[in-house]
């Protein structure tokens, strides 16, 4: 009864560092798990990301004037089940960054509020296993006037985004595999400078932001109390330019990264409303991005807002 797990109040969180941004993004939007109707899953997460080497265009190097660039993220997440086929997810992170060497000041602040509508229009039992299709629409919005134009120490890019995602999940017994692809539209960003150089001098404080594509593939074990998975993610900026030799990174660089990692989620046997999540990943390839190692840990608690508590196990 694979669908049992989907009815359960589960949320799995993974974290990915978006290239140079040092942005740790919680991604319940990338798992094939739905909250039950009227259930609200709330969580807090801590994520850490660090890199010493980075790709300046395609040239991999370190920078003794940065040392190791690291960031800490503290995030609150909410996932609400409108019904078993329609969930709403929201996330708000606070991020702080620093460089271990050099003279540059780190930055900190509340970053972007992101929200997803997650819809499972198809769920079909096959002869063997269950296949389900998900369609997701997401948006994010900066909620503070943080500085975007200070890479690699900015806490984010201050772009408003809209995303569309298609995801397919196949489960056989306790084993599953999920694949998804996301297109992200990114709005232009206004910076504090009145001109900047990309591949030409632009006499404006507005930066044209290229859109992005990402793909995510995961495979693992899923039961009512434990989920463990291996994840490969790829993120591609659809245009943009390379950092020139010994230049600083810029918002509209072509930031690409491929990461590989693992995640787990453990739901307590005695208190089934409470779950602990964790994950780690490493950047195996990149362009205009840091070769980051990321890890995260989170605690989630589910509250059932159903009028009558009949679904209780």
């Amino acid at each position: 009864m694979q669908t049992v797990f989907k009815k359960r109040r589960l949320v799995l969180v993974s974290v990915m560092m978006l290239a140079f941004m040092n942005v740790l993004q919680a991604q319940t939007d990338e798992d094939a798990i739905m909250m039950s109707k009227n259930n609200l899953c709330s969580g807090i997460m801590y994520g850490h990301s660090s890199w010493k080497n980075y790709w300046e265009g395609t040239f991999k190097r370190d920078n003794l004037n940065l040392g190791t660039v690291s960031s800490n993220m503290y995030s609150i997440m909410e996932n609400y089940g409108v019904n078993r086929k329609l969930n709403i997810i929201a996330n708000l992170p606070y991020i702080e960054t620093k460089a271990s060497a050099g003279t540059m000041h780190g930055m900190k602040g509340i970053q972007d509020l992101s929200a997803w509508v997650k819809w499972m229009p198809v769920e079909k039992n096959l002869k063997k296993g269950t296949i389900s299709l998900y369609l997701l629409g997401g948006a994010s919005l900066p909620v503070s006037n943080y500085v975007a134009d200070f890479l690699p120490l900015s806490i984010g890019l201050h772009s408003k985004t809209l995303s569309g995602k298609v995801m397919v999940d196949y489960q056989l017994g306790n084993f599953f595999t999920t694949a998804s692809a996301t297109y992200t539209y990114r709005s232009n960003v206004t910076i504090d400078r009145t001109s900047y150089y990309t591949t030409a001098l632009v006499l404006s404080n507005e930066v044209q932001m290229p859109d992005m594509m990402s793909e995510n593939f995961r495979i693992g074990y899923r039961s009512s109390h434990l989920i463990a998975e291996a994840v490969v993610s790829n993120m591609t900026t659809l245009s943009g330019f390379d950092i020139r030799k010994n230049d600083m990174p810029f918002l509209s660089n072509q930031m690409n990264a491929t990461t590989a990692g693992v995640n787990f989620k453990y739901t307590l046997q005695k208190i089934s409303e409470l779950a602990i999540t964790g994950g780690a990943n490493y950047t195996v390839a990149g362009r205009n991005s840091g070769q980051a190692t990321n890890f995260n840990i989170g605690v989630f608690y589910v509250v059932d807002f159903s009028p009558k508590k009949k679904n209780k196990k």
Partner: protein
Amino acid sequence: MKKIITFISFSIITAAIILIACNKNVSGRTANLPPLNPSNIDLNAGTWKTVLLKRPDTFAVATPLPVTNPAYIGELNEIKGYQKNLTSDQADKIKYWAAGGVLRWNEIMRELVAKYNLPPYQNPDGTYPIPSSANPFAYPLFPFANPPYAARAYAYISAAQYDALVACWYYKNKFNRPAPYVVDTSVHAAVTKTTLPSYPSEAAVLAGVTTEMMILFFPDEIANIQQKAIEQEQAAVMSGAASRSDIIAGDALGRQIADAFIARGRADGAGAAVGNQTIWTALETNTIARGETPWYSLETPKRPPMLPVFGKVTPFLFDTATTSALRPGPPPATTGDQMKTELNEVYGYVKNPTRDNTRIVHFWADGVGTYTPPGHWDAIAAEDFITKNYSEVRWARNMALLNMSLMDAAIVCWSTKYFYFNARPTQLNPAIKTITGIPNFPAYISGHSTFSGAAATILGYLIPERANAYTAMAQEASTSRLVGGIHYKSDCNVGLTVGASVGNYAIQKAKADGAN
């Protein structure tokens, strides 16, 4: 429920499509200017005092053929031929250049400075390669267009443009050949019609003089620069403003005048500004001998100081003795109470920087990969000049006054920095983390403050109604270095004062050049 779901999905998809369809192209502030429309054609500008040329007719220009000559009629037909089959790309180029040649070349120059303003990456042994004008195409690319280099490039190119246009106006007035659109009313004018004589063409004078000057400063860009010059000259012909012979005469005149400036540039001492190990070591030992803490590079690996001998470059507005005379007294002693107070003040600002201070710091940072503080002041000036409806020659004169001020400000500032060779705040207190990069040269006096003091002073003279605004901008630029953790207050305050003194020399020059 299904309906709601469908509706929500539909809405999201629609919103996404609408946004994706939105044009994200960013248009520069000067991308769509109308043609230059001078309120005064400055017909007497041939009498204005030049910077380097002894006389406006130092270089001879041949008497043009009369407009009734068949050869000239043939030139008019060339224009009409172009105008008959104008492509949209050609129309765009005409529009671009019609906004003003001095403006466009200044923008191109700022772009090249930004492109080349990158410090070289270190060698494997921790030393740094030095860009070489003898081998500009190999890494590190020549030049490293840092602020003093940029200030000098802007000044030479602007001053040469000014002298060239004064000579151009001299001959325009002398020969008084009307523009093609005046001679033949069937020639369409894609520029503002004026009574300014067209021989030699001011567009071609600018193209000629600027090409030669820019190649000197940015040798890698030779193909790009030559292409721009051809575009400008072609645009002048296609717009109906100049005939082929107007162009040929103007181009040749411009290039001859450039040669005079290039000769000056080769002998002004800038070639030796990088210094050498002996000079770098002496700066340190001399400072220690005075009982002060010497500056050292805060980069890893330590980078040699930027252009330590730039203070000896021959200025435009005064002589080298005046460079020394303008140098201010010493900064507060490293070990004294005042320095302690000023250091604490810097730390107070950067400990928990406010968002607004960070905005100011970044607005004025003009660091690596930008057109530098002199370029920022050129941008500020250019956007104000656009509103003033200057003639090309007045544009050139005012840009030259500004950029000579900025170069001479760099000379006095660098002379001061390497005379005292004092430490940055972060060197004395490593807890001071900065809101932008720390430039690789001594603190006293602040380059941003000196540049800004000079620029605000001359610009305030040129556009009196904006004088208070320029002063406020200069003050903000100066303060940005204090609150960004880059400079002590003394560096900033003294820098502004020294800059203003340099700017006053430009005012004296402006008062005497005959353009008022």
